């Protein structure tokens, strides 16, 4: 009986080792600039969106916001932008039926910059900064259910 169980025991052991190797791979400490990551995630999509600006000379900042957005509940992030620089804020999620919107507001709360259309689950807003100081980036989902979303930014 014990001998018959041995192959089964080896099989589970091999399975456990393979799983552990996968866990200990690059993903555990992956960086936002890990272009080789095989999985699609809100972050990888947001990076793809931002990478589209590279041709215009934008460089991607290795920092991001990620979290769950619910329909109609905005996420507001304070940033400090410098006069003379151009910025683009790119946001994405994996729900193709969602409608994502990114907007920029100045230190007094007035809308600033431009919004660029992406597809429904991707959106970008950009600004050429004239006055250095605090700005606010608002992410809002106008259509769709709760969904994990990520935002990255690039500058030139």
């Amino acid at each position, binding site marked *: 009986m014990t001998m018959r169980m041995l192959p089964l025991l080896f099989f589970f052991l091999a399975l456990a080792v393979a799983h552990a190797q996968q866990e200990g791979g690059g993903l555990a400490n992956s*960086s*936002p600039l890990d272009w080789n990551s095989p999985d699609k995630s809100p972050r990888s999509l947001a990076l793809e969106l931002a990478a589209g600006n590279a041709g215009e000379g934008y460089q991607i900042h*290795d920092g991001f*916001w990620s979290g769950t957005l619910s329909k109609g509940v905005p996420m507001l992030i*304070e940033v*400090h932008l410098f006069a003379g620089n151009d910025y683009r804020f790119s946001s994405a999620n994996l729900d193709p039926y969602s409608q994502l919107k990114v907007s920029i507001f100045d230190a007094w*709360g*007035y809308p600033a910059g431009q919004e660029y259309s992406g597809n429904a689950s991707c959106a970008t807003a950009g600004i050429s900064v004239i006055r250095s100081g605090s700005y606010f980036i608002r992410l809002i989902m106008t259509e769709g259910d709760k969904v994990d979303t990520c935002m990255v930014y690039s*500058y030139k």
Partner: protein
Amino acid sequence: MLSKILRTAALILMAIPSLAPAAEERLTPEQMRDASFLDTVSIPTPGEFFLAVDKQCQPNWSKVLRPVVPATTSDREIIALQLGILVADGFMAIEAQDGQSVKNSARDILLLAKKLNVSHQILARSQSISDFADVSDWRRLREELDAMQNDIRLCLLEQKDNPLVVLAMAGSWVRQLDMASNLLAAGENPSSTDLLAQPEIAARILSRVENLPENSKKTPLIRQLAEGIRSASTLMSTSPLFLPPTAVQSLASTMSTIAAAAAQADSKK
């Protein structure tokens, strides 16, 4: 003629979406007060800052660049501070388009990271930096150095070294202001002092430094750092839009003193 009119009409139509934000509502003071402030998104990178300084002042970066060789110390708090300063120096070397200085900064960052047990995670980044420096790819260099800084931050957080993350961030910010305020104090472009007015960031970094565990604040240098950031914060909140010449001089003196002290620091507590 008709094609000209059609082209103009098309241009106007294309411009309409850009006017769309004007129709949006204004944020309330409560919404702005409750906005999230994230270290990795809300605090600008040295790359962004120096790029803006470059556009406004067109300084001779090669003359401004004066890389610091940090004194050897076993004090982890001081090492973290020195590491932040070196990261800022690396970004400045990129602006100076001095590939060798960028490589030197990356090498010194790696040495300090080793002392904090986080070097093996940034080895590949260090190699990439060397490769991009060899081909003068300044855009990719900014991205890689930024990524290296973030990797160090993530590794320190992983090993529960949160105070060191705060000190590296403070070191980088102090060095940026040190270089830029000295540049502006020398009269490079007085109208650009708005770049130095960062009251929200000063207040956030000050709060993080003041809330460090008591053990991390025992070193005289860290107390000097807190004092310097407090003074910078006061200057910036008095003139939140741009800094008058006296404030720029004062900021330059304060930040230079801290950066120099960090480079020469010993580990006596």
